[in-house]
């Protein structure tokens, strides 16, 4: 896909009339494949390389096709591959297969019990019709920097299971999200599964964002988890931001302020300020400038940490 100048959330659409002068909403032609096994899918992707795109939920991809911002020669549709729609608890993780729909994951009892942050993040995504088709793994592979799930993956230290012509490999979330709409997937590879660590005991969590309208992509957002020890100090703190860079970012500067300390309001405020100051170059677009994103990121880190603390304290 040709690089697009970042103009708006999600789809990168500065300069709306392409040089060709059309304003299409019908997609261009492509070869269509609907493999029934993952191996078949991988073979097709390897065969077509850069010219192929994977279709799962389609909620991010198809708008780009309709607007002709993406023109893959081949579309490899995963929807006919069986056995990929699982979401379950396994070995201290919640594991989610490539075709698990956001709606199903949102409602999963295992997610509610083991890692409610995932469900909370999904509730901030778009609208019911989008979540009925969209997949969790698809959102991760699409890697919009303003999306919630990649930031949750980074905050929790999730693992991405990639499968390709050379077999399977596991990539840490930190390494998986490379840049704007760019992930560590080589031609022929597909993201098969995401593994999210379950919430440890005495851990509170939060995800907060500022969006222009309910369900829109975030202008900025923060994810936080806070684990308390017996003395009520933070034995583990994780803070991640989305919408403020070309990918989701952990904020060690904020985490350091709290690690080992009681998370009182002053320390949380200091952590929020550290997050704000650490933001070097947030993006600017028609909806918000870098200055706004920087300021709001600080505000949201504070709110996320306070909410995570309340949940941690309530969890006994």
């Amino acid at each position, binding site marked *: 896909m040709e690089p697009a100048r970042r103009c708006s959330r999600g789809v990168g659409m500065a300069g709306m009339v392409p040089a060709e002068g*059309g304003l299409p909403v019908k997609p261009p032609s492509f070869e269509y494949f609907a493999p029934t096994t993952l191996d078949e899918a991988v073979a097709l992707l390897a065969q077509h390389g850069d010219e192929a795109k994977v279709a799962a939920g389609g909620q991010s991809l198809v708008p780009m096709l309709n607007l002709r911002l993406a023109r893959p020669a081949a579309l490899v549709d995963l929807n006919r591959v069986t056995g990929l729609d699982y979401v379950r608890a396994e070995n201290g993780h919640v594991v989610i297969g490539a075709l698990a729909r956001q709606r199903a994951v949102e409602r999963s009892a295992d997610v509610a019990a083991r890692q409610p942050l995932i469900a909370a993040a999904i509730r901030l995504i778009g609208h019911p019709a989008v979540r009925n088709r969209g997949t969790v793994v698809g959102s991760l592979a699409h890697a919009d920097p303003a999306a919630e799930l990649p930031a949750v993956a980074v905050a929790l230290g999730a693992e991405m299971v990639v499968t390709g012509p050379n077999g399977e490999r596991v990539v840490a979330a930190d390494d998986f999200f490379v840049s704007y709409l760019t992930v560590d997937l080589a031609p022929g590879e597909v993201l098969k599964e995401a593994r999210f660590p379950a919430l440890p005991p005495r851990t509170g969590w939060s995800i907060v964002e500022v969006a222009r309208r309910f369900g829109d992509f975030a202008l900025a957002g923060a994810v936080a988890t806070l684990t308390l020890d017996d003395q009520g100090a933070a034995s583990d703190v994780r803070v991640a931001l989305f919408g403020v860079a070309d990918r989701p970012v952990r904020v060690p500067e904020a985490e350091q302020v709290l690690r080992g300390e009681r998370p009182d309001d002053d320390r949380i405020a200091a952590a929020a300020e550290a997050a704000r100051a650490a933001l070097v170059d947030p993006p600017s677009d028609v909806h918000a400038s870098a200055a706004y994103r920087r300021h709001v990121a600080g505000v949201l880190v504070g709110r996320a940490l306070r909410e995570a603390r309340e949940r941690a304290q309530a969890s006994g």
Partner: protein
Amino acid sequence: MVQMATPRGKWIGARVKRVEDPRFLTGDARYVADLMLPRMVHAAFVRSPYGHARIKGIDASAALAAPGVIAVLTHADVASVPPLQDPIALDGLKKTPQTVLASDKVRFVGEPVAVVIAEDRYLAEDAAELVQVDYEPLPAVTDAEAAMAEGAPLLFEDLGSNVVYDQTYRFGDPDSAFQQADRTFKKRLHTNRFMASPMETRGCIGQYDRGLGELTFWSSTQMPHMLRLSLAGFLGIPEQKIRVITPEVGGGFGQKMTLYPEEVVVAFLARHLQRPVKWIEDRRENLMSATHAKEQIIELEAAVKNDGTLLGLRATCIGDGGGYSFNTASALVEPQAAALMMPGLYRVANYEARVVAVVTNKTPVGAFRAVGWTAGHTARELFFDEIARELGMDPVEFRRKNMIHEDELPYTTCSGQVYDSGSYVKSLDLALQTVGYDELRARQAELRAQGRYLGIGISPYVEPTAWGSEIALQVGFPFPSHDNARVSIEPSGKVTVAVTTHSHGQGHETTLAQVAADILGVDLADVTVVFGDTAATPWGMGTYASRSAVIGGGAVTLAAQEVREKILKIAGRMLEADPADLVLADGKVSVQGSPDRSVTLAEVAVSSYFVNSVRAEGEDPTLTATRFYDPKATYSNGCIVVVAEVDPETGQVRLDRVVSVEDCGTVLNPMIVDGQIHGAVAQGIGGTLYEHLVYDDQGQLLTGTFMDYLLPTATEVPPIQVEHLETPSPVTVQGIKGMGEGGLMASPAAVAGAVLDALAPFTPKVEELPLSPERILRAIGTITD
């Protein structure tokens, strides 16, 4: 002075369900995109990617060779079609002709340059990408003030300037008023460019019959007869050989009251290709090339006494007209309307207004609900809030002091509007009472102590309506305006009402049927309202500027009254009674006092049509009357109050509720009035907080899809409570006034006012809209870099 000749029956004023709804609820309603004709082909337009450029050449050979392509047309192929140009006759208004396909130059991104015709839209879009246009980009100018400055790139070299109008009007003695003032104040507001964005985009189908020399043209338009007139002129086809049909129209709001180059091109193509040609605009095209609206740079000055009395006003309204002074009402449509209604419902004896209209390299501006008034009213109300604060006065008291009171009506403003009747202070009082103003102020103080910021915005308004010739002149657009209606009784006794106004959501099939049903004493179900087909209706000007209730309702009233007289004459002969002694009700004519002496309307009709002896010589057997109506100026009024909470750390706004008091005279159907207010207020919320057509300095539209052009949804629009007052107009048929635009005129000021009131402790300063979260944080100094 028009008498209310008919006492109110059971239908007018009733909250009746709309008779048209079932077909929309089942998916059977047909809009232009739903129509399929045999051998139909599809158009896709090639549009300029540059804000300003010369066209050096166009090579369509690759496109012509693409699969399924039938034709590609450029300006050279349609050079016989005259350019579009506005018809406004005002001294000093320069004209900016627009060829239907760009000829030597393009002046806005999205301007149509070529058209591709193919067997389906997918193939047409494929081929459109293959049309090679050789552009020489020119420097663009995208700000109205920059366009006015020396050395600005010129859109029309032969005009020598980008200013197409610059006139100053003086009423009373503004200079003395300012000299005598205790205090003077200034304000600047640059209102945001936003647009109608109806859910149904534009679209049309042309079909030409060579044998008959007839063009049938379906279009999603608000003005079928005006479109027919225009097409006749542009294509050289006699009017009588053109039939314009509007299928259902999915919203217009003024955007579809204009003639578009695409419509002329499609009609041309239908004749040229001898196959039906369909063009359905897509959403990207609509956002980019259907008319934009609302952007003005307004500077106000006020001369005030220490006690808050307004002595005089000065206004400069600069309309950012876009690439062409557009063909319906010119680039004056915004600033002229704003300037002339600036005094609003306030007592202002001395007023000076400079009206400037400028062309810029952006999409042309056209009418959109409350055109001009939205920007003017918003600027004035926010200005008055600032003045009140400076004087230490409650903004409500400042308004009460300067508002025209009911006992001063009728009132002629210094700028020439004649306010016939209204309830200005009563509406304000009712709105404040309904919202619980005093309790809200107390709650505001409580919440502030907790670090929460609640605000109240108050926006009383007077609304020009009905758009007859007189009011058109009063608000700055001299153009004759009238419409008519034909009412007839069929042989079966059923009533047909053919009107020339046109519904695109306003429920005319119901409201105008209510009018006829009351006068003719029939059930609503026995009345059919016909509109939207030039072959089936008399000539008229369509629906815009809140005309239909008054003009449509008025014309239907007059025609129905005439038909009623005819019915009573015939029935009188059948019953051997004096028509004056007859009662027409419940589908029957009976003798007053002797209800058993009666005939049904069906019997009257059959007799009239087929029994000569009941008719005198020369009497019309078909019980039909056509009457026209051009009403005297009549003004509605109301008051909108918005309650909002603002998060001063993120700039996010949560609207708590809206109260709208509306006085539109005699109400035909309160449910429909409520619906109009809800919709207009929602658009005002959009235009104040969310919607913005943003351009870069080369004229590229940065908000070209619904991902970036943000329409409010059910989570952004709060509950809206409507209260009705009814002050019948003394000058119109049945005392009806128009309505529908007040919500968009007045709600932006109430929304913005609520936000600014919430943040009053931070003394916010706002000179630009919309109030995005970022603008709010900048207004209170949280972000400065």
